[in-house]
């Protein structure tokens, strides 16, 4: 029985372009207080464009209705559990949004004088210190814009340090369970990617690793807990093997929500890592960003960090230090996704040290509770104890012709966002479930019920699952034909097109 949702009407809506009519306006500008300049005269006639063909012309009320209606077609954390594994879809506190809009911060121009930017710089400095403490690392750069950007920065740091010793090396090792951004990043830094097979526990196999590490290996990129939700038991030894050969250990910190307050990468041998502030630190995901990918590093990598770096003046004020001869350079303009950084610090302040630890424990509690409840119904490919997420496979259901993707779609009918589908790749037909700490027992119990119920449907009524979702305004979407002949922009219907005149 579906207990969590009921069908209700939602408004249909055309595209903005389709509701446009010449002369409708959603704006008004103040009267010009200076003489109006003729664009043709100021810029030259040929430099001035004609009107923007097809561009929308709508009123303010149509704008608010348009986006409000569209919004009702989305699922969201504020509506319910969002157990996307690896994504840490936790509650996004609204205080984050409030403080990010603080006038002096939201309207700070990156080039305004440093003496008029001390507040913004202080926020960054405090956040850097907090993240260093949380990760057990020596220094942090806040410049990268997201996790993948952080990986890029981190691998650049490793390369720069190795180059400094005279040899950048050639290869980066990635476990076969790694997220796709890891190999893609390694490639962008000019490294060859070598995949390392995980062992039967889903972990890095020490022997396999030892065999793979040679003088050409720059680093191993490991995710810990890894993408099957398991803490790498041999992580200290892994680090030793690498370090012994002059290679480094990069940690993908996407799963840091399992560790904050209970374990620090800096203490188990990691040289450099990124954090996804939009995951672990609750800045909202926003339908796909903005994020921030802080990179934490050991002392030996700090000289290579992107410039500018925060520093203190003799007068004890903050200043930007551009004099960083060994720096890898900039990975983006200005100083980072500052607005996201403000949100992350607000989150850290709200929890405080002890609170952060409790959050981690609750995240682990939730994942293990789900694991326990669903183990009788879904195949658990790795039996190692899990941390903040649990990965099942669709083995049993696939036998009946139902894949993880079908179960995911059916979960929508039960009122939940699906888990992460088909990742990590080492689990065939993976169901990757990460509840996070911000789900109530009530919500989790409903999730478990839904998953059990679907398992039963697979046996009793497989078509119901195969054709899901049934209760959404839009039925299963054909992704295959979208890719076959991509239409990625609206065009005016041919009969109306001016081009056709």
């Amino acid at each position, binding site marked *: 029985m579906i207990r969590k949702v009921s069908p209700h009407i939602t408004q249909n809506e055309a595209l903005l372009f389709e509701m446009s009519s010449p002369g409708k306006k959603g704006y008004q500008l103040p009267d010009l207080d200076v003489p109006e300049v003729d664009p043709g005269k100021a810029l030259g006639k040929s430099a001035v464009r004609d009107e923007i063909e097809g561009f929308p012309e709508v009123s303010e009320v149509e704008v608010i209705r348009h986006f409000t209606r569209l919004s009702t077609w989305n699922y969201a954390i504020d509506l319910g559990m969002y157990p996307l594994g690896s994504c840490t879809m936790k509650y996004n506190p609204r205080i984050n949004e409030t403080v990010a809009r603080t006038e002096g911060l939201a309207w700070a121009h990156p080039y305004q004088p440093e003496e008029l930017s001390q507040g913004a710089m202080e926020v960054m400095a405090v956040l850097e210190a907090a993240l260093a403490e949380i990760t057990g690392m020596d220094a942090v750069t806040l410049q990268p814009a997201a996790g993948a950007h952080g990986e890029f920065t981190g691998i650049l740091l490793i390369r720069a340090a190795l180059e400094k010793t005279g040899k950048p090396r050639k290869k980066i090792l990635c476990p076969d369970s790694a997220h796709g951004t890891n190999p893609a990043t390694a490639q962008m830094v000019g490294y060859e990617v070598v995949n390392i097979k995980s062992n039967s526990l889903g972990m890095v196999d020490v022997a396999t690793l030892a065999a793979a590490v040679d003088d050409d290996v720059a680093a191993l990129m490991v995710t810990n807990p890894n993408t099957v939700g398991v803490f790498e038991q041999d992580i200290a030894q892994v680090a030793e093997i690498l370090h012994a050969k002059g290679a480094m250990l990069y940690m993908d910190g996407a799963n840091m929500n399992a560790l904050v307050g209970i374990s620090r990468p800096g*203490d188990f041998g990691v040289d450099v890592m990124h954090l996804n502030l939009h995951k672990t630190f609750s800045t909202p995901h926003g339908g796909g960003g903005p994020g921030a990918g802080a990179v934490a590093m050991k002392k030996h990598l700090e000289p290579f960090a992107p410039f500018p770096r925060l520093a203190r003046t003799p007068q004890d004020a903050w200043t930007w230090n551009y004099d960083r001869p060994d720096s890898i350079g900039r990975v*983006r303009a200005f100083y980072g996704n500052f607005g996201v950084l403000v949100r992350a610090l607000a989150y850290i302040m*709200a929890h405080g040290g002890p609170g952060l630890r409790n959050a981690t424990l609750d995240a682990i509690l939730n994942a293990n509770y789900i694991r326990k409840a669903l183990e009788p119904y879904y195949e658990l490919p790795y039996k190692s104890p899990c941390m903040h997420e649990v990965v099942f496979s669709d083995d049993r259901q696939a036998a009946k012709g139902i894949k993880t993707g079908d179960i995911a779609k059916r979960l929508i009918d039960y009122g939940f966002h699906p888990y992460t589908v088909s990742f990590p790749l080492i689990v065939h037909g993976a169901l990757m479930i990460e509840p996070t700490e*911000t789900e109530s027992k009530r919500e989790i119990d409903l999730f478990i019920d839904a998953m059990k119920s679907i398992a039963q449907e697979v046996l009793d009524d497989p078509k119901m699952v195969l054709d899901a979702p049934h209760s959404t305004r839009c039925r299963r979407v054909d992704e295959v034909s979208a890719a076959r002949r991509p239409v990625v922009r609206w065009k005016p219907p041919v009969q109306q097109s001016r081009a056709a005149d």
Partner: protein
Amino acid sequence: MRYLPKSTDERNEMLATMGVQSMDDLVAQLPNAARLKRPLDIAPGKSEFEIVDYFRARGNDCATGYASFLGAGVYNHYRPVMTDVIVSRSEFLTSYTPYQAEISQGTLTQIFEFQTMVCQLTGMEVANASMYDGSSAVPEAAMMAVRITGRSKTLVARSLHPEYREVLTTYARHQGMPVEEFGYQPETGRIDIDDLAARIDSDTAAVIVQSPNFFGCVERIQEVAELAHRKGALLVFAFTEAVSLGLLEPPSEADIVAGELQSFAISPSYGGPFAGIIATKEKFIRQIPGRLVGETRDANGNRAFCLTLSTREQHIRREKATSNICTNQALIALMATVYLSVFGKEGLRELAIQNLSKAHYLGDRLLPAFSAPYFNEFVATIPDPAEANRALLGRKIVGGLDLGRFYPELAGHMLLCATEMSKKTDMDTVIDVLGGKS
């Protein structure tokens, strides 16, 4: 703690179901060596009231109540109330990347509209859903050009935003992509097309030109495009001031457009989060990095949207992906979409004309150092920019950018920007302090 929706009773009940004794037992699996054996050295949790207070105090330590004439890649434009109203909707703010199309049509439809508007503005045929920012969009565009042409070299205008050039250098360094700069004409402020012509060769993949360029000057794109194409290279058109697209001829001759949308309702926010874009010709669609939304049908045959061509992306292609980019700037792109809907066809033009008019009011009285037409920024010759800016600060005005910081040859010059937010009274003060003719 207010973010944790569980009582102690409930935790105990859950532990009991699982046969676990205590919360601490949950982490028994951690190897001893990996365990943190002390509390984090971070102060205990604070109340909302204290957090608001803290950030207010930090905000007050920054420039509040100043008029500003800084541009240089980050512009002060009015943010319509509507933008925050929309991005604050839980359904947009707290959703993930729209992988599950059936419960993400809101975001998907909006991105499709965004892509369309970017195409309309830039004169391109396809556009992606966003990039981190303009500065990282430019190297991604160069990488695209390298993939498309099979060539390796990038020629970049010295008048491209200096920090963008720095980012390009970082990205290019280990990808076998030599980057070379070409100059600008000291009289006009436009690119030195002869210098470009001299450098371009059969290994040139991309020519990167910004317009309006870092000095505010409007470039002659057609000319550069012809030169580049004649040599088999692609033209990458970059922009930092998106409002200019409301008035200037779109760069339809370019092959790739890479730019920054900060001007579209995105607050300066000390440099981010902003939103970059890449737009290009249809034929290059499979080389575009980042997310793309496409139109399709649902099982009932109704129009629907979904993420598409993900075979370009790292989830599937891993080390062979077009880029490693994953999470980027969806919500910021939504802000821009709302902004463009509010202003619309006429509004964007009127806005651009106001910017043009304000900047020219100032420029006419300060005498731009370069002769090329400019949009809302220009370079003025000011003997001691630092001194002048200090004087302006005393009048509650943040002046222009001291160009000597990025261009040693332009010491004694200042980059000034005026937008629709610049009040005549403040401009008159600037003119007065900088010794312009009023």
